[in-house]
């Protein structure tokens, strides 16, 4: 009699990352295609982004926003501050932050989706901002030294991490003492069944 393989108890990280890359890579290529979440040019206004924040931000960054809230509603970023944008996508929040903290502050946008990084980098060139950089990386291992950041922002990314504590712990590592998290994400009011947690489609959309 052949043995039945034990049922997986949690989603595999590599598999989940591949699924996220596929889904959000598609968003980067065509933000208006229609997804299980809101995306596209109308979303910033829906989330309360001020018009003046978007001045000078290229359309390709605005259109690729798939955020769930508004990190800037949690407090102004100040000139001179160092900021990490964890899961920067097409760069809209990084570029807004770069304007707020310039000229002496710096923004590092981190994402693991090549198509989003391409979009963000192209947009940054158009803005002429020199205090923003986009780096290929993952949330659980941010590419900055300990205590580098005054602020970590993120918009709709933490929910994609199977181990959210690990993600927040690395944000903690990256923050200076008294440094701030300003995060937009999602919450649920009904428990997600264990079987549903293995469904990659539910994770990504």
């Amino acid at each position, binding site marked *: 009699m052949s043995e039945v393989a034990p049922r997986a108890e949690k989603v595999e990280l590599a598999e989940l990352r591949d699924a996220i890359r596929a889904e959000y890579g598609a968003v980067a290529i065509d933000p208006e295609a*229609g*997804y*299980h*979440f*809101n995306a596209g040019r109308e979303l910033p206004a*829906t*989330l309360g982004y001020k018009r003046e924040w978007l001045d000078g931000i290229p359309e390709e960054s605005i259109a690729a926003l798939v955020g*769930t*809230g*508004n*990190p800037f*509603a*949690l*407090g102004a970023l100040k000139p001179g501050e160092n900021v990490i944008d964890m899961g920067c996508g097409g760069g809209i929040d990084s570029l807004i932050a770069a304007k707020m903290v310039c000229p002496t502050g710096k923004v590092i946008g981190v994402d693991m989706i090549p198509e989003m990084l391409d979009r963000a980098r192209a947009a940054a060139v158009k803005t002429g901002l020199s205090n923003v950089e986009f780096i290929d990386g993952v949330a659980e291992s941010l590419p900055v030294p300990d205590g580098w950041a005054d602020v970590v922002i993120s918009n*709709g990314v933490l929910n994609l991490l199977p181990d959210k*504590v690990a993600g*927040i*712990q690395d*944000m*903690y590592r990256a*923050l*200076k*003492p*008294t*440094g*701030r*998290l*300003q*995060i*937009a*994400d*999602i*919450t*649920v*009011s*009904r428990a*997600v069944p264990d079987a549903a947690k293995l469904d990659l489609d*539910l994770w990504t*959309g």
Partner: protein
Amino acid sequence: MTAGLVDFEITWKENIYAGAPPESNAEDYGTLGINFHARKPVNEAEWTAALQALSCDAPQAWAEVN
């Protein structure tokens, strides 16, 4: 607190999935968009004081989160 942060607060909640095509998965779980903030304490004493003010399970020592 588990990650060593203090001053956690959710400041905004809204159904951001209204009108998204389709909504059913989000509504199944009562999914809402939120904004929240938190802060890295200035030192261990601040974290310990915040921990003592909690009324739920959390790490008992600074070393557990550092």
